[in-house]
C-alpha cells in the first residue's frame, strides 16, 4: 500500500512532467539540498520529497519501458513479503521446537541419572 503511494505520486509526476514548472523547481532544490544547499524548515522537506518522487518516476519510466519490451519489471520480481514472513515464522517455530526437544532430552537424562 505504502509503496503504491510513492508510485502514485511518481505516476502523477510522470503525467505532469511537462506542465508543472513549480514541481520541477522543487525537485531541483531537493536534488541540490545537501548540507549546504538546504535552507531548512518544512519547505526543505517538501523539496526533498519531490526529489525522491522524481527518482521514483525515473524507476517507473524504466519499468514501463521494460514491460513494453516484454521483460519482467523490478517491482514484480520481488518475493511476496507476507509469504517470506510466514516462512520465517515457520522457521522460528522449528527453532523453538528444536530447543524444547533438547530441553526435554536433558530432563529425561537427569531423571535417568537420578534413578
Amino acid at each position, binding site marked *: *500500500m*505504502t*509503496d*503504491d*503511494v*510513492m508510485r*502514485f*505520486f511518481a505516476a502523477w509526476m510522470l503525467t505532469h512532467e511537462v506542465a508543472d514548472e513549480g514541481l520541477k523547481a522543487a525537485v531541483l532544490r531537493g536534488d541540490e539540498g*545537501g*548540507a*549546504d544547499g*538546504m535552507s*531548512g*524548515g*518544512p519547505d*526543505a*522537506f517538501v523539496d*526533498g*520529497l519531490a526529489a*525522491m*518522487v522524481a527518482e521514483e518516476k525515473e524507476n517507473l519510466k524504466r519499468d514501463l519501458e521494460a514491460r513494453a519490451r516484454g521483460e519482467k519489471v523490478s517491482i514484480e520480481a520481488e518475493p511476496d513479503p507476507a509469504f*517470506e514472513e510466514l516462512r*520465517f515464522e515457520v*522457521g*522460528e517455530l*522449528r*527453532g*523453538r521446537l*528444536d*530447543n524444547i*526437544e*533438547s*530441553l526435554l532430552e*536433558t530432563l529425561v*537424562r*537427569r531423571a535417568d*541419572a537420578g534413578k
Partner: protein
Amino acid sequence: MASRRLTIAGTVLRRLIAALPAAGFGLASAHRRRAAFARAWRLAFEDLGPAFIKLGQLISVRPDEFSDELVAEMQSMQDAVPPLPAEAIRAVIRAEFAREPEELWATFDDVPVASASIAQVHRATLARAYTPVWGTELPTGTALAIKVVRPGAAESIRADVAIARSLAERVARMRFARRFDPVALLDEFASTVDRELDLRQEGRFADRFTFDFRDDPKVVAPRIVWPTSTARVLTMEFMTGWRLNQLEEARAGGVDCYALAVHGATAFMRQVFVYGRYHADLHPANLFVTPDNTIAYLDFGIVGFLTSEERMNITQVMAALVYRDPERALTYSANLGVHVPADRVATVREGLGELLGGTFRPDGTRDFAHFGLGFLKLLGENNVQIPSGYGLLIKSLATVEGVARALYPEIDIVETAKPFTTRILGQAMGDPARLHERIPAAIRAAMRELVA
C-alpha cells in the same frame, strides 16, 4: 546482603578518597573536580562487578541526567574481566544439558575467545549439520561460538540491583535528587539486565536480524543452533573478521571501508526507521568487517524496540534534523513523551535552532553526536523528563555515527538518513488514518490558494 552493602559503600568511598588529590582536595576547577570524581565512580563500578558495569553503561546513555564528565567516563567503561577457568564453564554446560561439551559439539576449546562481565565465549565445531531458522544449512564442522553465562552472574546482579534499589529509594527522598528518578533508572536497568541474562532472547533477535537483512548480502549476523542453546548457553556461528581497531589490516586485506561505512550506517537506519527494532549495544567489539566486504553484527544482548507510532515520531524527529526544522523536532518529540513546559518552549526552541544550525564539522559534514547529546542536555537543563528509550536511541545513533566515522572519517550520517526519513514520511502520506485526519485541512489550504 549487609556485608555486600558494606563492600559497595567501602569500594565507592575508597575510590572517591583516592580521587581527592586529582580533585585538588575540592579546590580545583569545577570541571577538574567533576572529572576526577567521575573517574573514581567508573573505577569503583569496574571493581564492583557485572551489575555495576552494566549500570555504568546505562548511565553512559543518559547525558540528560548526569554530568558530561560522568557520561564520558562511563562510556569508557571496560566490560572485559579475567576469564573463568574452563571447568567452571564446563560445569554450567553440564548443568544445562546433563552432558559433556564433547557430547554436544564435535570439538570444544577450553581457551575462551572473549570474557565479559555476564558471559564468556568459547570456540567449538558443529557435530551434525543443522538448518537454522533462516538461510542455508550449516554443515558438520561449522565453526561455532558458545556463549555461556558466568556461574553466579545472574544471582549476583539481581542481589546488587536489590541493594542499589534500596539505596536509590533513600536518595530519591533527598532534595538534591529531585531532577532525576534513581528508582526508575534502576528499574529500567533491572529489566534490561534480565533480558540480557536470558540468552535465548538474544538468539531470537539474531535470527530476526538475519531475516530482516535477507536481501542484503553485505549485512550478516551469526545464526543460532537451537538444539544446543538454553537460557544460559547460546550456540551460534563463529564470525571471523577485523574489529574496528584493526582497520589498517582490513584495508590491506582489500576491504572497501567507505562502502562499508555507508552501508553500516544505512543498515542501522533501516533497523530503526523501517523495522523499529535495533541493536542498541553497538561498540567496536560488537562489529566486524569481514574479508568478503560484509559487516557482521554480534551480541544482541541489548536491543531497542519501537512501536510503529514511536517509529514514525522518531522518523519525524530525524527528518527535523535532516531538514533543520526545530518546530517539527519539538512537535514529534512531544508525541514521544518529551513534554516541554509551556514557559520553557521558547528557550528550548531557540536552543534547538542553535543546535540544528551548529552541527557542522570543519569538513562540512554534520555531527549527529553533537546534536543528539546536546539535545538531551538541553532538555535536562530545562527540567524536561526524557522517556525511557529516547536517550538510548539517540546514544545508539551517535554510536553508529562514531563507528561509521571510524571506518570512513568523512561520512555524513545525517545525509545518509535523508533518503530513509524522506521515503518513510512520504509513504506515510498514504496511511488511511492520516489521510482522514489531514485531507480536510489540505483541501482548505488548496482552496485558499485557488481563490487567492
